[in-house]
């Protein structure tokens, strides 16, 4: 056992990569939930994003187009959820689960001819000068562009929710849809936009796995990331920066446990493998002292009765 073999700089850099799909999906879901909608179909939207992004970037040779396609793919799938929950007023929990089931199957059908292909590579941005700074350089300035997109998106969502009128309306819809409706806001329309934004973000997160982190296409390759993303939103008590923190924490523990294994630390492996989940629970218990709670209308169906 030699802990000296673990390089903290590389550890932090790689946990940022590991956390990015989680972050993207969770920040999208945060907006959805802020609007008062609980979409449990994140995993389904991610995997559809993963295959849309993969297929398009293989066909066009451009990873950028792939990510655009992934966002569109996720958003289009989320329209099914819109149809069920906003038009047909169906139960959101069940609709979300159905969406995941459908998405997993649908992506597998789409992906049949893409097994065993290598996608075009996106490369990393090495910001000149800054990336050469010791310690900070490799951590902050030597990543792929989408990782920065994720962080930027977090900041944008935070600022939009906090400072813009649109953010205020979104929160109002999530807190009390009847009051928001009475004030003349179009509850359904706002929710539809939020859901599609969530779908697009989940799609990006999925494509990050199939195009950058792994990169390849196999059925069911998101392997439960969507569920963790859902958990993260609750974990973060619906605060964007805490989503970032949570994603890094979760990604960090996952990467750290692998590091400890490789360094030969004599903790039984199965307990190390459990550790990300157990630590998440512990942190959650500590954070539950914070009483800032869920959007009040979360998961409730809205129907404007005149």
């Amino acid at each position, binding site marked *: 056992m030699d802990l000296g073999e673990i390089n903290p700089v590389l550890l932090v850099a790689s946990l940022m990569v590991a956390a990015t799909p989680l972050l993207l999906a969770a920040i999208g879901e945060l907006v959805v939930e802020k609007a008062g909608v609980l979409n449990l179909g994140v995993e389904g939207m991610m995997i559809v994003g993963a295959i849309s992004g993969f297929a398009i970037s293989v066909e066009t040779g451009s990873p950028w187009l792939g990510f655009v396609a992934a966002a569109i793919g996720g958003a289009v799938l989320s329209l*099914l959820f819109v*149809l*069920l929950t906003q038009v*047909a*007023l*169906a*139960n959101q*929990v*069940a*609709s979300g*689960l*159905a*969406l995941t*089931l*459908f*998405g*997993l*199957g*649908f*992506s*597998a*059908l789409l992906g*049949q001819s893409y097994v065993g292909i290598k996608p075009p590579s996106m490369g990393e941005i090495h910001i000149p000068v800054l990336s050469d700074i010791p310690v900070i350089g490799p951590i902050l300035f030597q990543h792929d562009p989408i990782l920065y997109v994720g962080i930027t998106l977090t900041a944008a969502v935070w600022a939009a929710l906090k400072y813009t009128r649109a953010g205020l309306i979104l929160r109002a819809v999530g807190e009390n849809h009847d009051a928001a409706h009475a004030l003349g806001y*179009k509850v359904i329309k706002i929710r539809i936009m939020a859901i599609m934004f969530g779908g697009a973000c989940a799609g990006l997160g999925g494509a990050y796995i199939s195009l950058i982190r792994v990169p390849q296409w196999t*059925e069911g390759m998101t392997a*439960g990331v969507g*569920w963790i993303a*859902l*958990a993260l939103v*609750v*974990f973060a008590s619906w605060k964007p920066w805490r989503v970032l923190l949570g994603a890094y924490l979760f990604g960090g523990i996952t990467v750290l446990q692998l590091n400890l294994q490789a360094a030969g630390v004599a903790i*039984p492996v*199965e*307990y190390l*493998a*459990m550790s990300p*989940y*157990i630590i*998440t*629970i512990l942190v*959650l*218990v500590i954070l*539950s*002292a914070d*009483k800032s709670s869920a959007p009040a209308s979360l998961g409730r169906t809205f*129907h*404007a*009765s*005149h």
Partner: protein
Amino acid sequence: MIVLEKRPQPSKAWSYATPLVAVIATMVFGGILFAILGKNPIEAIGTIFWEPLFGEFAFYYRPQLLVKGAPLVLIAIGLSLGFRAGIWNIGAEGQYIMGAIFGAGAGLAFYPLEAWFIFPIMVLAGAFGGWLWATIPAFLKVRFGTNEILVSLMLVYVAEQFLASVSLGLLKNPEGFGFPGSRNLQSYESAHNAELIAGSGMHWGVVAAFIAVIFAYVLLNRHMLGFHIRLTGEAPRAAKFAGVNPARLILFCLGLSGALAGLAGMFEVSGPSGVVSIDFNVGYGFTAIIVAFLGRLHPVGILLAGGIMALTYIGGEIAQSQLGLPAAAIQVFQGMLLFFLLAFDLLTNYRIRAARSEVA
């Protein structure tokens, strides 16, 4: 312009008709999907819905519907009680695993002793394992206000790792040449949850599922506790005035759903499955959430929904081997069925009317 008008009372007629309409719509759209995949749609649909029930080998498939449906129903019944009260246990998969581990562990501790009391002890141990795993989120919620959705979900992953650990270590079959997995309980008579009438598919888990349905029905309709559960879900403030103790309700609902999921795991491991292995769990805990909602959180509805889910699984397997449909197509088909069941439910509670365009 078309508007929705909420019915004063849910329509009885539509509540019976919507599942039928949904199934027909699924057949139409599923048929289109199968046609795109180059299969004869009528043949494919017929295979999925007809073969398991009335086909040449229905004598084998009908009992299998019970085997496949029972754990779904048993888990979903427990979940539905909590869901009605707004208590979200989505970690039934983990409770199912723990029930199986505890149940099998209790049985194997007696190996090779043959005695009548072993199986009842396993049943208790299985229920206890599930109860224990569900009580963790319940306790954290009551004591610290921690969100139960997240904790119960996280505990699924912990349970999966624990399952891998015992399959490779504690419960590993000493005569298994080092391979993972426990002894097969099917060949340990005192611990075997055998079919009560061979070939019928009826094992104790199926019996337990039926009992749970009746129990839940009576509880919800005839018992004070059931009233409190419904009240808490529908009108939390009113529930408070009615003297509902929320902490006790949380502990009860989560604990019971955990115990039922644990029982399902225990009956599965001691019967149809036989061994504790790394891949023992196959997603019943998650599918049961869908079953609970498909059944509209109503005990009888859940029974029917469990049957329909089991039917599409078994019919789907037949369609795969007979027609070469990919498993993914079956998954999409199941997804469609859920979509339509959920969407057409609209007609039960709302009336669609044409109306003049007006400012919303």
